[in-house]
């Protein structure tokens, strides 16, 4: 289907839905011209804050954990390398939803049994799960980026007396960052989409709000359509940023 026909089709569907005949479309639930429609839209859009905050914190944590996992994974010492490999393989194999349930319902019990009594709310439960689950992928992004730097660079750094941390910081990372940032930003798109799962443990983000509205309004098609549109806008903005970053990094490289 071409873009034009799909836009035309969407318009027809929308116009048809605007007549509130029973059994037909019901765009009225999110019609901003009516008070209830306007309030519904506000209710749905208010989920953006939580979705964005959730994604940003989870992505930042994932970037840190990913680096801490990736660095020992490139060591020549197998006792550093293996735990990193095992972590990556293990975490990658767990689907997000079961992990979310385990963290939200199971982890507090585990912590309590070892004497740490904390309750994990939906917000932090979702963040922990998203960050850990994503960190396996960010770790691989770091690894690919760092390993793309010629071995001669680290050798030269050693011969001028730099230690491991200095070599990473002043020689390897400044060069690898061009290969790391664009895929890392791309990975952020996945976190945003995966954050929808937080709805099942009661996190009031975009998807949860849509679900709640569907329960009271019985208009799943219209509400979920808007929900998809919300994610679409968010992801397109990020994609735009990723493209810009790729172009910028790419042009730096050719200099």
């Amino acid at each position, binding site marked *: 289907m071409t873009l034009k026909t799909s836009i035309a089709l969407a318009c027809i569907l929308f116009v048809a839905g605007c007549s509130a005949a029973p059994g037909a479309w019901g765009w009225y639930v999110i019609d901003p011209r009516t008070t209830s429609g306007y309030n519904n839209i506000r209710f749905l859009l208010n989920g953006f804050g939580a979705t964005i905050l959730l994604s940003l914190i989870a992505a930042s944590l994932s970037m840190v954990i990913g680096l801490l996992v990736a660095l020992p994974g490139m060591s020549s010492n197998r006792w550093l390398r293996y735990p990193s490999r095992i972590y990556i393989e293990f975490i990658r194999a767990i689907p997000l939803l079961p992990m979310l349930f385990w963290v939200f319902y199971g982890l507090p019990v585990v912590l309590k049994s070892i004497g740490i009594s904390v309750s994990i709310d939906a917000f932090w439960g979702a963040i922990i799960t998203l960050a850990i689950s994503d960190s396996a992928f960010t770790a691989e992004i770091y690894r690919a980026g760092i390993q793309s730097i010629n071995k001669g*660079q680290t*050798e*030269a750094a*050693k*011969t*001028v*007396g730099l230690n491991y941390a200095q070599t990473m910081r*002043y*020689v390897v990372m400044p*060069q690898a960052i061009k290969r790391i940032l664009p895929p890392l930003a791309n990975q952020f798109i996945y976190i945003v989409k995966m954050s929808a799962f937080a709805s099942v443990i009661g996190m009031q983000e975009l998807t949860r709000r849509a679900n709640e509205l569907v329960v009271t309004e019985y208009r799943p098609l219209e509400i979920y359509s808007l929900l998809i549109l919300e994610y679409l806008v968010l992801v397109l903005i990020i994609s735009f940023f990723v493209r810009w970053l790729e172009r910028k990094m790419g042009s730096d490289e050719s200099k």
Partner: protein
Amino acid sequence: MSNKSKAIEIHALNKWYGSYQALKDINLTVDHGERIVVCGPSGSGKSTLIRCVNSLEVHDSGQIIVDEIEMKDDESIHEIRSEVGMVFQQFNLFPHLTILQNLTLGPIKARGMSKVDAEERAMRYLERVRIPDQAHKKPSELSGGQQQRVAIARSLCMEPKIMLFDEPTSALDPEMISEVLDVIVDLAEDGMTMICVTHEMGFARRAADRMIFMDHGEIIETGKPEEFFEAPKSERCRKFLSQILQH
């Protein structure tokens, strides 16, 4: 320091890559101020040998002592590396830094020198390799010969007692070889201890105190340049030299 002390002592050195033995029972001592040129066919273990001296390759058995420091733990390796400079075939300059930053990175970060002092020292060595006017360019803006001279200056900025060169001119266009070799000869005349892997036999005659010929991971022959070139003792060395000297 006593006259007895050696710059480098290598005893019964062995090195394997998996099941392949790259170095076989290497014994070698280098005096302070001695200039050694190592040659030999491709794959004979020349690079492996000099890379063992600053622990870029980890040896499997044997003893390496550099300036009375025995290589055993990370600390001794760090100390040894601060005495030994190395120049690579592929230059290995840091492409994201300017020439000046390439030279000052080690002194500032590893030695804790002030930026002003480090830059002053860097300019001194850039003058020594005759390219002070390139200080603010990036490595990619320089010719191969200039890049290799920067690499030499970068090593010198750490004020090493010993310099290792691994085929420093093999990646260069012919017209740039001599500008790099001249800089190395200069260093040699100033009394720098050095081991240079090279097939530039003209340079070897000019600068070497001692020649070493390696094959299949062993030191086959060693001797003063005159004897080495005029009357090589082993058949393998003679054959190698006749091939090299043909072009």
